[in-house]
């Protein structure tokens, strides 16, 4: 009896937490299909906000820049972050501690400070703000997350494996790509995913480093919330759908591959 009660309680707790996480998202999605402009009264089903969204050139441009910046920033920051992490794991303790502490600063720093810092830097260097500057800013704030995600896994690695590879005739580059990186794959992917989401929804830093030509989804949404507009809900819904799909693919594809492998072995 007691056990059943406990099970029930713990079960409902999970559901409560889930509801807390997902109800707001569901709410946003629901009202993207609203017939009227209201965000609290559901008056009927319609797709007009999706139509409006795709008709809007600002939203199209914002989506384009958001995706392209997020993809490039993720690729570059993942490469730099992975190499840095591997290098750090082989360096002296003092150097490693110092670099890791410095690596923490951008993450602890409020975004607005980083943003104004970037803006002043670019201004004082007389760099015209645009695609290049926002991309640089995004790469730089993504790198710490990649390093942070990879470091713990690196500590668990057996150093002997890389040495064995070298002993058996692998070049250092081969040892890196064939022995070290495959072992880190999981944490590299999770680092890349964090970097992607950080870049995808960043507003503050983007606003101050993007200049007059570039606008991303976050800037568009943030400057539009003053006036009621369910196209924002439509946009959010599409983002949620994309992110969910990506997550499902990332999680399901390895499972399928694993199963197939096992099938072949049998």
């Amino acid at each position: 009896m007691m056990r059943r009660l406990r099970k029930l309680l713990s079960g409902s707790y999970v559901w409560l937490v889930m509801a807390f996480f997902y109800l707001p998202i569901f709410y946003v999605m629901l009202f993207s299909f609203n017939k009227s402009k209201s965000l609290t009264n559901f008056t009927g089903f319609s797709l007009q906000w999706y139509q409006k969204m795709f008709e809007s050139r600002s939203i199209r441009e914002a989506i384009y820049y958001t995706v392209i910046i997020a993809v490039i920033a993720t690729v570059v920051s993942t490469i730099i972050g992975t190499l840095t992490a591997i290098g750090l794991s082989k360096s002296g303790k003092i150097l490693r501690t110092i670099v890791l502490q410095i690596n923490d600063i951008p993450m602890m720093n409020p975004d607005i400070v980083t943003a104004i810092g970037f803006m002043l830097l670019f201004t004082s260097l007389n760099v015209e703000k645009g695609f290049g500057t926002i991309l640089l800013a995004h790469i730089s704030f993504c790198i710490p997350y990649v390093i942070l995600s990879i470091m713990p896994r690196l500590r668990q690695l057996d150093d002997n494996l890389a040495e064995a590879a070298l002993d058996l005739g692998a070049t250092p580059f081969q040892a890196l790509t064939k022995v070290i990186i495959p072992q880190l794959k999981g944490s590299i992917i999770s680092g890349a995913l964090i970097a992607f989401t950080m870049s995808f929804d960043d507003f503050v830093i983007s606003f101050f480093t993007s200049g007059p030509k570039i606008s991303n989804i976050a800037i568009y949404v943030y400057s539009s919330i003053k006036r009621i507009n369910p196209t924002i809900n439509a946009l959010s819904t599409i983002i949620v759908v994309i992110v969910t799909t990506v997550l499902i693919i990332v999680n399901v594809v390895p499972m399928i591959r694993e199963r197939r492998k096992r099938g072949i072995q049998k």
Partner: protein
Amino acid sequence: MRKILVALLAVLMVLGFTGCSGNNEPKQELYVFNWGEYIDENNITLFEKRYNCKVYYKTFDSNEEMYTAIVGGDKYDIIVPSDYMVERLIKEEMIQKLDLSQITNIGNLAAGLKSPDYDPSHEYSVPYFQGSIGIVYDTTKVTLEELEEQGWNILVNPKYAGEIYMYNADRDNFLPALKALGYSVNTTSDEEIQAAYQWLINQKKTMNPAYVTDEVNDNMIDGLKALAVAYSGAATYIMSENENMGYYEPKQGTNIWSDAMCITKNCQNLDLAHKWINFCLEPEVAEANSLWVGYTSDVQSVIDKLSSEGGEFYGINAYTPRIGYALDEEYHDDLTLKTKLAELWNQVMFAE
């Protein structure tokens, strides 16, 4: 791993190509920095077609954000600050004088916008949208007579305790208090500011008001409370969704505001910038913008058309804010006052 990289590169290239298409000849460019959701985007396309140019249109969320970006060296041709910010930008010489001979449509301006305090002869700026702050009320719970009798003080009438939304934004939060006490919204007297602060503290103690920002729109449409301090633009929307709602501008006076188009000091294309301002003053363009945004137009003929019988905003008095009333004031640029009010407002918020 390699496959993923290849796929990513492919995506990038496709995106890259679509991004570059149509860039065959160098066109004239215009950089516009405006509030979010503040234009019917078809107007941008129309302007591009008419003058064979490319408009880069970017949006901001607050005057301060816009100001920081400009100070930080972002090069825009047209910006659309609010009244007090225009005043500051003129003081700091960050916007330049307009050539009014190129803005032939300036005569279209609405009656209430002919000579704003911040720039009485439109040397530097041409208004874009306008509005006031007032009280949205549920006509089934509150009568117009009560409002006319009590004005802003209805917000401290115990009869409506728990039935009030106060607007929680810079300076707007102090507006009802200052005006209820008969002071100017631009007062520099510490005594008056303290009195207004006490008014707000008392209100908080006796009335239990809800401090909100934009959620007030939907809440009032649902008729959750009887009274709300709101912008005329929001009130227009509320009234068009719920016919039981009314809008009232107290006789003690209120704040009237306008956002205005300005040309920056480092504008790259003066000719096109003037054309943009002139374009926005065309009745068809202004009408489309006003219909899209729901705010009061800067063009008189548009206001007349939309508020007359058969117009989109017929019967909605919030769309036609009061003009030429001596006690209505614009906010002036005053950083000391702003900081003082912000500090006191925090104390109001944390008061028990």
